[in-house]
């Protein structure tokens, strides 16, 4: 056992020391933090008061209503926050085009040097109330959000004015116009988890991606490490002191523990970023409110555990097979032919995720989360989306472990013969004979 441990440790240290490990480990958390903070940082640039001149050609007080509606808006929706707009209403008095053009001439200057200038000119024509048509001439008209917000505000004033003109009480009106606000929260084990539906989707997708990538990357690394041992002929020294099964075990567990470390760092970062994001926002001077606008998923401790458990199971299952493939080959090119047997399994397990998103407890989701070779992605994703009955989890894990035992048995038999085979790559018939040999 201490020999197996020596192999595990060698493999672990050799891998953790590489630059690749360092870079990939650091890059994902940096990416995660960036994805959650940068949008908020970016949006912050738009959070300043926009100076608008209103050319008012309306003759029924509609322009004044618009001015007061826009004037009451603040940047973050709170009453004490800075105003969203600084307004200056100019009556057109029949010279709409001339007034508009004279105001347009005042746009685009630096507000610090020319406080009398504007960011944009909003033109409200005399038929505005009927046609709903208005014109905005601004230095920045491509800001989708700010333009959308302006349009929304105008629409609201239009709606309210038209309805009020039809004799409807504004108070009733306000009440009637209040929309539905559907909050989705995932329920698990009879308890609300505090995860929103959108967040569950994101975390599920993220996990599926990382699990798929993790198994493929670490599986390939195991395979290449075996091939390297074969080509560097270190194999004979090892084979004379260590059993092939110990070598296989040491190799798979060594690479696997590197994977587990990396996954823990990644998963842990997600956990920290999502649970501490308000504090994180404070560090980069982004208002917590801005942060909360983005549906950043939160990862519960239970989900984190399931994620790691299924990563271990899935990696060991595929890792043993990748190692067996490595043992049969003398170059990575040779190995591709056999890897092609594993790739469809992994692809199916990844794409099944989309069926699970559609219906986590449906005819694809439930069996996929039970069947080994697929469950390592399907189960964590299902878990993140819906409540999983404990019995199903037990069945899934039991089947997984049974499959693992079977696969390890087959893999160690291929490995035993394969590692000392040089020359041409074996046919599938030969591999079958290796497995059956005493």
């Amino acid at each position: 056992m201490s020999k197996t441990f020596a192999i595990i440790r060698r493999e672990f240290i050799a891998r953790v020391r590489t630059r690749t490990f360092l870079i990939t480990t650091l890059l994902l958390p940096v990416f995660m933090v960036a994805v959650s903070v940068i949008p908020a940082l970016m949006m912050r640039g738009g959070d300043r008061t926009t100076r608008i001149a209103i050319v008012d050609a309306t003759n029924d007080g509609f322009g004044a209503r618009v001015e007061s509606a826009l004037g009451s808006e603040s940047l973050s929706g709170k009453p004490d926050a800075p105003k969203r707009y600084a307004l200056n209403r100019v009556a057109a008095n029949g010279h709409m085009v001339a007034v508009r053009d004279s105001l347009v001439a005042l746009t685009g200057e630096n507000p610090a040097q020319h406080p009398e200038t504007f960011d944009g000119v909003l033109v409200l024509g005399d038929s505005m109330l009927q046609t709903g048509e208005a014109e905005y001439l601004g230095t920045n008209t491509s800001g989708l959000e700010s333009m959308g917000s302006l349009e929304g505000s105008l629409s609201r004033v239009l709606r309210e004015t038209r309805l009020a003109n039809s004799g409807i009480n504004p108070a009733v009106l306000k009440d009637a116009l209040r929309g539905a606000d559907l909050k989705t929260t995932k329920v698990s084990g009879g308890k609300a988890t505090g995860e929103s539906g959108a967040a569950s989707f994101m975390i599920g997708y993220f996990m599926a991606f990382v699990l798929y990538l993790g198994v493929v990357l670490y599986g390939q690394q195991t395979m290449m490490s075996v091939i390297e041992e074969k080509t560097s002929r270190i194999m004979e020294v090892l084979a004379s002191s260590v059993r092939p099964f110990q070598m296989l075990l040491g190799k798979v567990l060594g690479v696997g523990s590197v994977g587990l470390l990396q996954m823990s760092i990644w998963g842990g970062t997600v956990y920290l970023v999502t649970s501490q994001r308000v504090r994180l926002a404070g560090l980069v001077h982004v208002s917590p409110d801005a942060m909360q606008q983005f549906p950043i998923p939160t990862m519960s401790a239970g989900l984190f555990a399931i994620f790691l458990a299924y990563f271990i199971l899935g990696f060991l299952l595929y890792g043993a097979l990748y190692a067996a493939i490595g043992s049969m080959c003398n170059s990575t090119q040779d190995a591709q032919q056999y890897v092609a047997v594993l790739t469809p399994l992994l692809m199916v397990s990844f794409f099944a995720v989309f069926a699970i998103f559609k219906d986590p407890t449906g005819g694809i989701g439930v069996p996929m989360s039970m069947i080994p070779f697929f469950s390592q992605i399907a189960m964590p994703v299902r878990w993140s989306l819906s409540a999983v009955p404990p019995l199903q989890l037990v069945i899934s894990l039991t089947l997984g472990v049974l499959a693992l035992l079977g696969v390890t048995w087959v893999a160690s038999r291929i490995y035993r013969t394969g590692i000392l085979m040089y020359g041409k790559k074996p046919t599938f018939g030969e591999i079958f004979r290796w497995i059956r040999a005493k």
Partner: protein
Amino acid sequence: MSTPAVSIDHVTKRFSGHVAVRDLSFSVPAGGIFGLLGPNGAGKSTTIRMIMDIIEPDEGKISLFGSAASSRDLSARVGFLPEERGLYKKMKILEHLAFLGEVKGMRVSDAKSKADKWLQRLGLGDWGQKKVEDLSKGMQQKVQFAGALIHDPELVILDEPFSGLDPVNLQVMKDVVVEIARSGRTVLFSTHIMEQAERMCDRIVIIARGEKVVDGAVTEVKAGFGDRNIALTFVSGKEAAERILADRAMVAKCDDYGASAEVSMVAGVNPQSLLAALVGAGVGLSRFEVIEPSLQAIFIAKVGNAGVAPANAEAA
């Protein structure tokens, strides 16, 4: 005699289509240096791999130290240098040696201090923290050699240990091998270079085409070969000498070069009697040397050139 370190009993190994080792039996006594000789492709490496339990014989039995356990279970007592050298290129030398010690069952700390001692001994003391790939080929060979010996095995099995070494490193490794044998431990090494075996080995086995051709102590093998020559250089009394050398009861053949001659004795006649006869006749000699047949000569005589397989069949 004590239990042999290695005993090989009617072992046969076939590879798809051809027999690599055929009904081979020999035993390596504990202590001393044992040479496994043969041309390329004779089955030396196959035999060694079977001894190391890397491959299993199809027939026959191999035991180490008279134990029924497989040599892998006894690997803490056996050191092995395979013919195909290989190290992890990215690993640091000291850690690599320690790792090789660990898979032989040593404790990490013991393995590290031992590794350090070996590096000092082989003149690589400053290289411990360097990576394997930074070393020259000769240095890598030495590291591998140290790796086979790091756990102080009582049986050391070296497959072609001296191939590809420069004279300086060759000397260093020879000294180590001789020292191991002197300390009462056993060295089994294979080679196709007869001069090496002749100078170092106590006992040898020569195999060709997978079969044993010669087996025994080097002195016995040479004595048993018979064909002994005597080299003479004359100072005076050449005429008297010619009469004695013409005596076909004692001298089978004589190549006379004038001032010197090379003589083959009749089988069973002691070279001492020739010396006595020459001295008795008043012949002045500056040289009287019994030339033993070289292993090379014995090898060629026993195996013949036909025994030398083409070089590309070496993998067997």
